[in-house]
């Protein structure tokens, strides 16, 4: 199996609306793939197609080397999933909900339910009706159900949604641990960009149904724009000195911004230049564009 997930020209139309348009996805085994997109970009539609919940208008979907659908066909014994807001039978307890999932997953080991409860830290709520759970705990129940059968591939729609900050860190560590220690492939959509930034080894950006960018997380690091922020008490003198030295400078809101590679590589030279010009810096900071800014720049450009 070359890819854990592979889509070839995946498209889904609802009438005249192209929810997903010719998406080619390739997710390797053991990767943590962050799938980014604005609301309505096509993230959930893609995930539903990966899980055989909708029939593609065109294209193919292969998961763990097997074709998906029609008729719900797929390697579901080896795939865990959570789509949109997790749902549970409100009158059943947390344990009963997981017990239903265990049986439908065909897991003979009765201990799987207790292990999933323990792993997701919902032991205190195990005998409470799911209808009384908080959003965060309902989310944990959804994740427990996804991980109940120790799947090789996890397809998760917004896994950090609804969790408190401690929960977000906990789930991030759990997913990272599963990927690094057990080789589990994680495909996760998210709009919490910092989460994707910290966890994903590869990132895909979907916008208006099209996959507009797909790259290694390390490569994205290089693509994000950087600039040197300079703050001084004599901005006019500093501006002249920097421009005179051949730097490309812009002034905004009382600060100076330099984007030349040599300034970013050697800010100490900029500091020396400013001191000699009689405008010593009060702040000198190399700032890298965060994923959010990169994402907005990218989707803005493609709109």
């Amino acid at each position, binding site marked *: 199996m070359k890819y854990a997930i592979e889509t070839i020209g995946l498209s889904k139309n*609802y009438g005249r609306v192209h929810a997903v348009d010719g998406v080619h996805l390739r997710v390797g085994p053991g990767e943590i793939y962050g799938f980014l997109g604005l609301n309505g970009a096509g993230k959930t*539609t893609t995930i*539903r197609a990966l*899980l*055989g*919940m*909708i*029939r593609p208008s065109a294209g193919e979907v292969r998961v763990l080397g097997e074709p998906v659908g*029609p*008729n*719900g066909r*797929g390697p*579901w*014994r080896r*795939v865990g*999933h959570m*789509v*949109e*807001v997790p*749902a*549970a*039978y*409100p*009158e*059943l307890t947390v344990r*009963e909900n997981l*017990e*239903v*999932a265990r*049986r*439908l*997953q*065909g897991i003979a080991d009765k201990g799987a339910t207790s292990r999933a409860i323990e792993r997701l830290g919902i032991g205190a709520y195990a005998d409470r009706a799911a209808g009384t759970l908080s959003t965060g705990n309902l989310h944990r129940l959804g994740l427990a*159900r996804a991980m109940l059968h120790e799947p090789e591939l996890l397809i998760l729609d917004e896994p950090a949604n609804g969790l408190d900050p401690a929960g977000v860190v906990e789930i991030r560590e759990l997913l990272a641990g599963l990927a690094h220690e057990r080789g589990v492939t994680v495909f996760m959509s998210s709009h919490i960009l910092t989460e994707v930034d910290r966890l994903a080894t590869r990132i895909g950006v979907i916008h208006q149904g099209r996959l507009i960018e797909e790259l290694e997380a390390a490569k994205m690091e290089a693509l994000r724009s950087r600039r040197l922020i300079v703050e001084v008490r004599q901005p006019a003198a500093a501006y002249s000195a920097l421009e005179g030295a051949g730097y490309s400078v812009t002034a905004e809101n009382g600060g100076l911004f330099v984007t030349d590679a040599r300034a970013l590589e050697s800010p100490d030279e900029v500091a020396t230049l400013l001191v000699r010009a009689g405008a010593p810096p009060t702040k000198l900071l190399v700032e890298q564009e965060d994923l959010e800014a990169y994402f907005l720049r990218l989707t803005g450009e493609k709109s």
Partner: protein
Amino acid sequence: MNAFFAALWAEALKAYRSKVIWLSAAVVTILPLVDGMFMVILKNPERAKEMGLIGAKAQLVAGTATWPNFFYVMMMTGIAVGILFAFLTAWVFGREFSDRTAKELLALPTPRGTIVAAKFVLLAVWTQALALWIFGLSLVVVRAVDIPGDFSNLEAVSFGYFMGIAFLNYLLMPCAAYVASLGRGYLPPMAWIFFTLASAQLLQIMGWGEWYPWAVPALVGEMAGPKGGSIGVHSLLMVLAAFVAGLAATFAWWRSADQSR
């Protein structure tokens, strides 16, 4: 087979933990008690007059307190129970959409068709158990009411008719299940129930009831009443056709329809 029993276990647990199972039992428990109450009133016509409206209603429905009339009212109950069966079908299928749990049933090693089959088996057991409960309770009530005469023959015949009506009603449920699935919730099958009720009445008045599956349980009920009568095999075949069509449509929908909600 294991997958089927796993799905049936899951469906049974969902039903057992819900209020609907107890609510349905409570509703059908009232029906034989009402039948018995009519007979108590009709045993004493003077008292029926004193009771005003309810006495008039009892006389309208059952006439006089006799064994045939008691069992005839029971048959009418059996027809009405078809509405309850449809509500249960709407719940069993529609709740997966109202609770947004349908998406948890789609990408599983247990095939979708197996889950749908388990739902229909649960409904069969549930509806026929309710019918048995109504009949059993009716026998207790009828003894308590103490209507004079011998009813040992009527008992067996009525049982056959009553369970026949209950079974025919069950055979009409897959269409309601399909409407619940297609409409993704409770409301569309509710509308379906009222449509079938109204259309059955209309077609019966027009004399085409024997060809309309949703009118057939009432025709069987009338056979057991004072007017008697009979129905042809074609009527039963129409019910069977509705059953097969409903099943096929529901299975096909769960296998193939886009689940985008």
